[in-house]
């Protein structure tokens, strides 16, 4: 298992953002992290990428614990944060060169060329990031995330705000990457989870509701679409919480 999460909890003041969640992910399988807004998806991802520490529980990436070996973890992950922050006044190649420098990649120019090719940034590669459309910015974000060829990719809402054509482009890229790497992506678009993911974890109010392979999930809820399953799982939790 390249991602292993055990009883992970994060408390913000009086509020539990995530509550003792456990899951694992492995290479060649895309794990979809589904949940309503504020369910704790981004918080989990921030802990996995060593941006913030957990309150309790453990998480490890490729065998390295996030709290005791943060530098090793950071070398093994590629992270696309929510809202895709970028240096808007840098050029595409400049920003990739900077990131390559941070990762001490040896043959920088060759790798940057490969990544530009892979993400389809070819025609836009000489522009400033600020001048790019949202779809291309998203590609730059992805290019940054895969630049150092990480074993684990953590993508926080990789297709939010894109038009249908761009979504298809990004999806096929993720699918391609998911064949060899461990990919964890969060989304609240059900069609996307259906199209992309092999394994689905539905998270609500900081708790994991289900975590199974997609075919098994359909099997457990016969005759329902993923959307209906999502609604019933997240709403029954709300009903349960009220009792």
């Amino acid at each position: 298992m390249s991602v292993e999460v055990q009883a992970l909890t994060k408390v913000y003041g009086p509020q539990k953002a995530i509550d003792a969640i456990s899951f694992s992910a492995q290479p060649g399988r895309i794990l979809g992290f589904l949940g309503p807004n504020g369910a704790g998806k981004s918080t989990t991802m921030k802990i996995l990428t060593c941006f913030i520490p957990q309150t309790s529980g453990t998480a490890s990436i490729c065998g390295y614990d996030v709290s005791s070996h943060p530098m090793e973890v950071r070398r093994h992950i590629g992270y696309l944060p929510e809202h895709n922050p970028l240096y808007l006044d840098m050029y595409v190649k400049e920003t990739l060169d900077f990131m390559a420098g941070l990762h001490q990649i040896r043959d920088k120019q060759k790798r940057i060329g490969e990544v530009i090719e892979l993400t389809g940034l070819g025609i836009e590669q000489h522009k400033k990031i600020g001048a790019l459309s949202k779809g291309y910015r998203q590609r730059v974000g992805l290019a940054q995330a895969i630049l150092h060829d990480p074993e684990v990719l953590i993508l926080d809402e990789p297709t939010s705000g894109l038009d249908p054509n761009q979504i298809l482009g990004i999806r096929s890229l993720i699918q391609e990457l998911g064949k060899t790497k461990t990919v964890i992506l969060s989304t609240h678009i059900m069609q996307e989870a259906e199209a992309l993911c092999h394994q689905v974890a539905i998270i609500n109010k900081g708790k994991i509701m289900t975590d199974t392979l997609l075919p098994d999930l359909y099997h457990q809820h016969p005759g329902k679409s993923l959307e209906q399953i999502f609604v019933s799982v997240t709403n029954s939790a709300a009903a349960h919480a009220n009792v």
Partner: protein
Amino acid sequence: MFSIFYKELSGYLNSLVAYITIGAFLVITGLFLWVFPESSILDYGYAGLDSLFYIAPYIFMFLIPAITMRSLAEEKKEGTFELLATRPLTDWQIVWGKYMAAVSILKLALIPTIIYYITVYQLGVTPGNIDSGAVIGSYIGLLLLGAAFAATGLFASSLGKNQIVAFIIAVFICFFAFSGLDSLSQLISLQNFNLSALGINEHYQSISRGVLDTRDLVYFLSYILFFLLLTKTILGGRKW
């Protein structure tokens, strides 16, 4: 760390920030040194750069916070800080890289003022009649003072997402550390505490005389380290 330094430096040099601050610095010092009658060397009649080293700290007080105000505040506002913090980099490396870049801009601003020195050197009644030791000392003092201001500015920039707030806080701390403590020490009730020894001005003046005292050096280095350490602590604040 070198990558951060290089990125920051090219960020300054690719935007107008560096050129405007350096330009403003040179224009203001040039005016004070050669044009304005009260402080101009030509009217004053002595071959010395005293008025440059008198006015420069006050200019730095505003210009250096202007250079450093965006360095961390903008990263936080744009969310790119998350991008940096999830790369194999320690917070120290981020702080240090950004700090060195700001100090480099400061050095770039100081280098052209060597022309003033050469001019005064040539203008003396017997050319070369200038106290070079004091000038070298003053340059070292000014560099240390600027480096201290840059550390203050970086600290202020780490406090929040707003660049203007960072700028104002930095100017205030710089002013207080430079001359505020000096003035406070003149209050009768505080005269016994030797407060001015805590202020930058006292140590700056002492180095400007051309005597490099370890006490002054240690003062500046510990001032810089103190503020960089504070900056690093605040960046690590997300982990509390």
